[in-house]
């Protein structure tokens, strides 16, 4: 038995260059009794962390390296061979850092096809063992071409640049026709040059069995079908991991090459995996240590948050000392300071941000302003976040206002310098659909068939499950199935073998990596597809290296709040301090609104499931809101926690505790285990585990896999409880209750952080409804489409105003409504709401209007815009056309059809002519305009027809738009309408056939049958609901949730394909005092099914247009004009 180790081994991180997973390769190497195995992916070290982990598990030594693409300006090698591959293996940490630097430099300077110049490699070769690519490299190419002289010259060139130390020529015998000859020639060359040969097998897969996967993926990579030959495809199945015994006969003439491989592997010693986390270095004021600075910051805030007179102050001080000591033990001061700095900067820039997740359990995080919820009063448990026994990386996720997240990321990158900060990658692995698509294409299925095959697969399926869909795939092929049967079998064989293979790297959604050492000590940096600097590792890899990622996640609810506050500041002159609202007791008006279920647009409370939950639970305190947020989740629903809680809340089920010791822990959730913190405390109090053990117990409970593991935990728990003096039977009952919780539960601190945001949004909606809804609409978030929010505004009695070039801002704004009204503010639609109008153009319009006065005509608008925006003429034309169709010029008082006609006729002229009036007179004109609101203003006599819209005598007389036409145009151009709901136009007919308005359902008794009509604004079939479907219908008077029994839910998609407006027959179900849902027994599409008498309805269903807004994207004006002419 020799000691050969494989030093050239590609893993799937070479991306479609390998046929076996990292685990398979490492385990095979272990089975072959290799003491070490190298990873040498092409131009990347993305797989090294997983490789190291797999090697640790298998108990073999990892050798870390990379196959580098090197360009060598060597005249003698000829023009064809100017780049070649060189294998670089890291001897030690420095070598690895150099390797990462080389890769980073190449990735950043030539992102498309990164190549390393030989001179760079020569400058950074310390700590690297180089193998000159006698196998895949330029030397071999020259030898294959028979150009021995050039090969020799190139080798000399390499040696002259790189020296002979740690330099080898790798040789290989892959049982190809030329292998024996190349081996002999390479040995000669090396001998002449005075360097040694190292044997490798150029491994791309673990066993010959995986050869097909490798060949197929090669075809995918090269864009070939399997029957098309290519010189980069493998010719035989010999590039698998071979043992010393298997290789000896092949290297009979050069046995020392095998031994060299073993000795090279022996000198490459590098362990990347870290035992503990290292936070980034934070800039400190002079004379401060991280510990003292953290303490000073916390102590400065302590008296402002807990006034010294109050009882809580002492408790707070005690908690602070405890937390600081834990943080000091774990040496995480700088981690906290780093997050503090990010959040502080966010607040300074006016960017709303707040910590979420378990960090809110910490008083340090609270005092630093990272989290907004006071931990003591809300029973938040620090040990859930950090404890001395917890070795893993702590996690503070910061939610940031979506629209300004980039700003904060840029600040962080600038603060820590690009060498220490980059985004974390997300490794995208092959999923069922993608794998099927790639492999089917490579197997030669025609594209049309590939589309049909993938169309029959679920979006998120696993590759390993493809066999389950075999029949679906056969069906997809239809009559062509028999002819493709053999290929289909191949497909079914290959697809599951791609399970877990990385396909490409993308960006993690918000993970920012900050490191103490330069990034390149641990990994290579690259540019993502959209030009963002990102590392090649994903979040788990980064954690395994002991580095800390900071999650900055975009949250649109924060945008809503900020936009709303901006609007309030604009109109009132000052910003309400919503962050300092007292939480207990909460604001009465706000809670009244929440209890009434008017929570549309309120963060975390807006889903239909929440409406009925709110109706049942009737929250009164902030704590109730926290429960509300935590309850309405797939986890608690699945674990069956919702009904016991509701029952106890309503007083139907008595609140009982299995043991008196549980009472203080479960009191505020009425005896139901709802939060992870409670599991922790129960394990601590009842079973007597330390908090560290208890946290381990909680995590084990969340991830438990087998019955036996569960039994082991039960024994531990019960034994502990018995020691505490609790009866065995009781302890077992408590354990069972915890077991059914298994990980679905929510972190109380997370729920509390979210609930605070919920409360702020609800507060704003209750007190500033117009401002809040306008802000919410601008933020473009939420569960429902914007049209539903506009309807909500109408229900609340908030006046809504259409988009208008004279008054609209780029986004939604509020407008004062004069006179004595309940709602003094209305909502004005923004210009960007019109499809085809971008933010840039909208801003330009508003800026022009504010700088030079209102527009006095369409002509005036067009010419002034031509001057001020940089948009191309075609784009501008489309945008202005959309504005005309949307009615944004209706303020000029010209009928829209006529205006559209004028626009079509005159655009060419308007878009090229310069404005004739001076700015001064334009302003005067605008002033007059405002007074008279008429187009008949004095204009330049020289070019009267340019300026005067109305005097165009040749414009045909077109009939005015009806209200129904206007709604239809609104929906088509903006997706929302401030005019009546589309159902209004059907109401008379609906009344005739006995359809009830939704608003009247509340007056009906439970069980009563009723027929309603409405627009579908949400349809769901949650996996937790046992194939029951949920719809929300909306008409001009209200919304109602419709429950569809499985049979109806099954066929709903067919009905929705016909129309999004439905006629539903159902029985009334009453929830709580106010809330009503409908249990459907019949669902029909409207108008196709029910109102055939109305011909116009059948021809122009106004709802249908909205159902397919994408078809109406390019609003052509000619049809509008033409329709008018036709009448």
């Amino acid at each position: 038995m020799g000691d050969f180790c494989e030093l050239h081994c590609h893993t799937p991180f070479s991306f479609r260059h390998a046929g076996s997973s990292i685990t398979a390769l490492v385990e095979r190497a272990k089975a072959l009794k290799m003491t070490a195995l190298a990873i040498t992916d092409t131009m990347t070290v993305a797989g090294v962390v997983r490789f190291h982990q797999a090697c640790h598990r298998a108990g073999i030594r990892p050798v870390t390296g990379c196959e580098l693409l090197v360009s060598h300006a060597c005249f003698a090698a000829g023009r064809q061979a100017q780049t070649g591959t060189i294998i670089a293996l890291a001897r030690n940490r420095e070598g690895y850092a150099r390797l990462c630097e080389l890769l980073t430099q190449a990735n950043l300077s030539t992102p498309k096809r990164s190549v390393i110049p030989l001179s760079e490699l020569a400058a950074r070769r310390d700590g690297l063992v180089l193998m000159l690519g006698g196998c895949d490299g330029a030397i071999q190419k020259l030898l294959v071409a028979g150009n021995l002289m050039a090969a020799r010259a190139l080798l000399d060139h390499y040696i002259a640049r790189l020296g002979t130390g740690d330099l080898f020529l790798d040789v290989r015998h892959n049982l190809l026709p030329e292998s024996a000859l190349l081996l002999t020639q390479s040995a000669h060359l090396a001998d002449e040059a005075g360097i040694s040969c190292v044997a490798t097998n150029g491994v791309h897969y673990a066993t010959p069995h995986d050869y097909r996967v490798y060949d197929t993926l090669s075809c995918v990579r090269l864009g070939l079908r399997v029957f098309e030959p290519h010189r980069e495809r493998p010719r035989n199945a010999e590039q698998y991991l071979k043992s010393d015994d298997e290789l000896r006969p092949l290297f009979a003439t050069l046995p020392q090459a095998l031994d060299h491989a073993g000795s090279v592997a022996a000198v490459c010693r590098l362990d990347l995996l870290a035992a503990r986390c290292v936070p980034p270095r934070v800039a400190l004021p002079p004379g401060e240590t991280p510990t003292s600075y953290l303490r000073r910051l916390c102590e400065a805030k302590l008296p402002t948050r807990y006034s010294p007179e109050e009882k809580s102050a002492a408790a707070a001080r005690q908690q602070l000392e405890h937390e600081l000591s834990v943080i000091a033990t774990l040496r995480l001061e700088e981690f906290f300071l780093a997050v503090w700095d990010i959040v502080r900067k966010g607040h300074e820039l006016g960017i709303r941000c707040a910590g979420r997740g378990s960090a809110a359990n910490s008083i340090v995080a609270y005092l630093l302003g990272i989290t907004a919820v006071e931990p003591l009063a809300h029973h938040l448990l620090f040990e859930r976040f950090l404890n001395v026994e917890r070795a893993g990386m702590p996690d503070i996720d910061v939610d940031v206002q979506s629209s300004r997240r980039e700003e904060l990321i840029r600040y962080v990158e600038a603060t820590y310098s690009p060498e220490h900060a980059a985004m974390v990658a997300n490794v995208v692995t092959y999923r069922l659909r993608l794998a099927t698509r790639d492999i089917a294409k490579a197997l030669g299925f025609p594209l049309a068939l590939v589309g049909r095959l993938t169309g029959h697969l679920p979006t998120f399926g696993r590759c390993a499950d493809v066999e389950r869909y075999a029949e679906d795939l056969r069906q997809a092929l239809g009559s062509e199935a028999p002819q493709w049967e053999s290929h289909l079998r191949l497909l079914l064989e290959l697809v599951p073998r791609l399970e877990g293979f990385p396909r490409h790297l993308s960006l993690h959604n918000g993970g920012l990596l900050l490191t103490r050492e330069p990034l390149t000590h641990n990994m290579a940096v690259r540019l993502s597809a959209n030009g963002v600097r990102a590392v090649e590792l994903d979040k788990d890899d980064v954690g395994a290296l002991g580095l800390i990622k900071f999650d900055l996640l975009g949250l649109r609810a924060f945008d809503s709040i900020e936009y709303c506050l901006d609007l309030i500041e604009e109109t009132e002159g000052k910003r309400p301090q919503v962050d300092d609202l007292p939480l207990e007791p909460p604001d009465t008006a706000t809670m009244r609104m929440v209890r009434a279920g008017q929570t549309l647009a309120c963060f975390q409370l807006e889903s239909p499931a929440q409406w009925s939950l709110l109706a049942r639970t009737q929250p009164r305190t902030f704590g109730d809101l926290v429960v509300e947020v935590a309850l309405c989740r797939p986890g608690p629903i699945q674990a069956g926690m919702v009904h016991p809680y509701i029952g106890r809340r309503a007083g139907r089920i008595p609140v009982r505790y299995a043991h008196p010791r549980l009472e203080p822990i479960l009191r505020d959730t009425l005896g139901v285990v709802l939060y992870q913190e409670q599991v922790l405390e129960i394990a601590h109090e009842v079973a007597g585990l330390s908090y560290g053990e208890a946290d381990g117990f909680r995590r084990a409970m969340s991830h438990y896999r087998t019955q036996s593991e569960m039994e082991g935990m039960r024994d531990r728990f019960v034994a502990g409880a018995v020691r505490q003096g609790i009866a065995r039977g009781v302890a077992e009952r408590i354990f069972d209750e915890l077991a059914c919780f298994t990980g679905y539960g929510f972190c109380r601190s997370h729920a509390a952080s979210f609930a605070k945001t919920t409360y702020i949004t609800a507060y704003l909606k209750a007190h500033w409804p117009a401002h809040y809804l306008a802000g919410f609409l601008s933020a473009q978030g939420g569960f429902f489409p914007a049209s539903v929010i506009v309807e909500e505004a109408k229900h609340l009695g908030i006046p809504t105003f259409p988009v208008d070039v004279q008054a609209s801002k780029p986004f939604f704004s509020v407008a004062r409504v004069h006179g004595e009204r309940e709602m003094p503010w209305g909502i004005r639609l923004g210009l960007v709401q019109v499809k085809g109008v971008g933010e840039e153009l909208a801003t330009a319009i508003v800026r022009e209007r504010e700088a030079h006065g209102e527009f006095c005509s369409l002509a005036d608008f067009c010419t002034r815009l031509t001057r001020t925006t940089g948009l191309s003429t075609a784009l501008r034309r489309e945008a202005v056309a959309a504005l005309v169709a949307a009615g944004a010029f209706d303020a000029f008082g010209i009928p829209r059809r006529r205006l559209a006609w004028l626009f079509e006729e005159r655009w060419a002229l308007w878009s090229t002519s310069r404005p004739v009036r001076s700015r001064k007179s334009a302003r005067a004109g605008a002033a007059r305009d405002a007074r008279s609101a008429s187009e008949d203003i004095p204009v330049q006599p020289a070019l009267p027809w340019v300026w005067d819209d109305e005097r165009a005598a040749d414009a045909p007389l077109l009939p005015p738009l009806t209200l129904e036409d206007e709604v239809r145009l609104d929906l088509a151009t903006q997706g929302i309408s401030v005019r009546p709901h589309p159902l209004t136009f059907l109401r008379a007919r609906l009344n005739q056939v006995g359809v009830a308005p939704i608003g009247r359902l509340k007056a009906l008794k439970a069980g009563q049958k009723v027929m309603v009509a409405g627009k579908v604004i949400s349809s769901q079939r949650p996996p937790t609901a046992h194939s029951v479907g949920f719809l929300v219908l909306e008409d001009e008077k209200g919304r109602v949730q419709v429950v569809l029994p499985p049979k109806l839910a099954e066929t709903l998609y067919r009905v929705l394909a016909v129309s999004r407006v439905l006629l539903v027959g159902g029985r009334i179900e009453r929830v709580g005092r106010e809330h009503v849902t409908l249990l459907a027994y019949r669902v029909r599409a409207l108008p196709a099914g029910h109102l055939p008498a109305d011909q116009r309805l059948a021809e122009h269903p106004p709802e249908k247009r909205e159902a397919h807004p994408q078809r109406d994207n390019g609003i052509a004006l000619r049809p509008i004009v033409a329709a008018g002419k036709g009448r």
Partner: protein
Amino acid sequence: MSRRYQEAITVTLQGERLTSFTWRGNTYRIRVIANWRLAARWWSAEHAANRHYYRVMTADCQVFEVYHDQVSGAWILDTCLD
């Protein structure tokens, strides 16, 4: 010039070493001068090839290429090279 035959032959092996083959009634004593493997067309049931090729030279310096079909176990004389 070379010529392809694709005819079945019988071979004698000493251990793993190929020493002679019999083709059309004649036995040739040979030594192996090169060998390689080919795996191709695995996607097609009929045409799949998984072969170990040997380039062999007879005592009178005739060169043949024969292969051992790894699936069926047959030995085939593929080519006679001049």
